[in-house]
């Protein structure tokens, strides 16, 4: 099945199998290694991407279901010379330990910021509830998102 995706603003046409998942296409076919493979059943949230502006688990989405979608991975925000405000705040707050969940955590922070939800702590906690951070950095995530919402 031919699938057309826009990933981080760039269009792709990919031939996918019926049983291929979006996480595998993004990670292994298109090379977006920031999309992590975790539990594979929608529990840990490490494979999170923004699909048409909304956070979703890419391990639960057959690739053909994403046809025509606009996808953002962590590679699509900020750059080495100009970090996204959430990335800057994660560094300032020391929110990164092992780093494995950080691509997903940063994308959740961006989504909160884009939606104007980053200033409300309860909402921030709710948004991070679907992400399993083994290091337990949730309080730092919360501080980082609060910093980003204040404009750095």
């Amino acid at each position, binding site marked *: 099945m031919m699938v057309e995706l826009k990933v981080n603003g760039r269009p792709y046409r990919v031939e996918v199998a019926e049983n291929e*998942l979006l996480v595998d296409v993004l990670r292994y076919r298109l090379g977006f290694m920031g999309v992590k493979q975790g539990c594979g059943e929608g529990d840990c949230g490490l494979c999170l991407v923004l699909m048409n502006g909304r956070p979703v*688990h890419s391990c639960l989405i057959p690739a053909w279901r994403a046809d025509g979608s606009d996808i953002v991975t962590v590679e699509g925000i900020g750059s080495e010379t100009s970090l996204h405000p959430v990335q800057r705040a994660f560094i300032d707050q020391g929110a990164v330990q092992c780093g494995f969940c950080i691509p997903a955590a940063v994308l959740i922070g961006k989504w909160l910021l884009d939606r104007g939800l980053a200033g409300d702590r309860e909402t921030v906690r709710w948004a991070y509830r679907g992400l399993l951070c083994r290091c337990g950095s949730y309080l730092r995530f919360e501080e980082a998102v609060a910093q980003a919402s204040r404009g750095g």
Partner: protein
Amino acid sequence: MPRFSVSRPSSLREAVERLSSGEGVYPIAGGTALIPLIKKGLLEVRELVDLSSVRELGAIRREDGRVFVGGMVTHSELVDAAPWGMRNVLRDFLRNHTSPHVMNLATVGGSVASSTSSEDLLPVLLAADAEVVLAGRDGDHSVSLEDYLARRGSFRAEIVEGVRVRYVWDGWRFSFSKLSVSVRRMPAFCVVVGARVSDQTVEDCRVAVAFADGLRPGRLRDVEDAVRGKRVDAVRAADVEDAVRRSIRPAGDVHFPSEYRRKVTSRVTALMLSEVLGA
């Protein structure tokens, strides 16, 4: 994942035809429950019938005091677009007990079709007197959600077109409570309680739990009957707790043994009922 084929019908009739075409053909709604089952080899799939292009399944509309919610409406769309009578309980469920990643994918029809205790929406729908609208080769028909859950296997060749839920709940107070180690895992308990009180008397009430019998959610009608018609000050928490204990036979697992689930569900239900009764 094992190999399978995919069909993408654009109408409900076409989807029903595909579903009736033989063994190993399953509909896919949000995929949050189905994809893990396929991955783990717990479901042998020959063909997936993708329901995402079936327009009828995305509808939300008012119908004579009830609201129809299409099977492909996601949990987040449900709270965004359907201001029905139990919206506070629904908001509480979505806000405090799930996450945006799940609610953007999980669908109303998928939750109903999954029919298990992990679907927190089911006690909410049970307490809201939901009926399930099913589309099959012989046309549409509807059954109460309770009946659907009790006879799940009988509806295997039909598609959950949507649910109809009572819209007006004047004077009712509802409460939702759940404990889980993570958003997607089987909870320790999940309870929805509602009551309407007039002149200090319980006019009507609802008690729905995620673990009524094994992994099947259900309404606890014996408990409701025991409370209905009583004066609020005559409803004793210990009696409610005992009635719930006698009504449920929860499944156990490695995190939460059956007896623990029974105990905690009983105690929490009694506390929630006291709360909504203002006792």
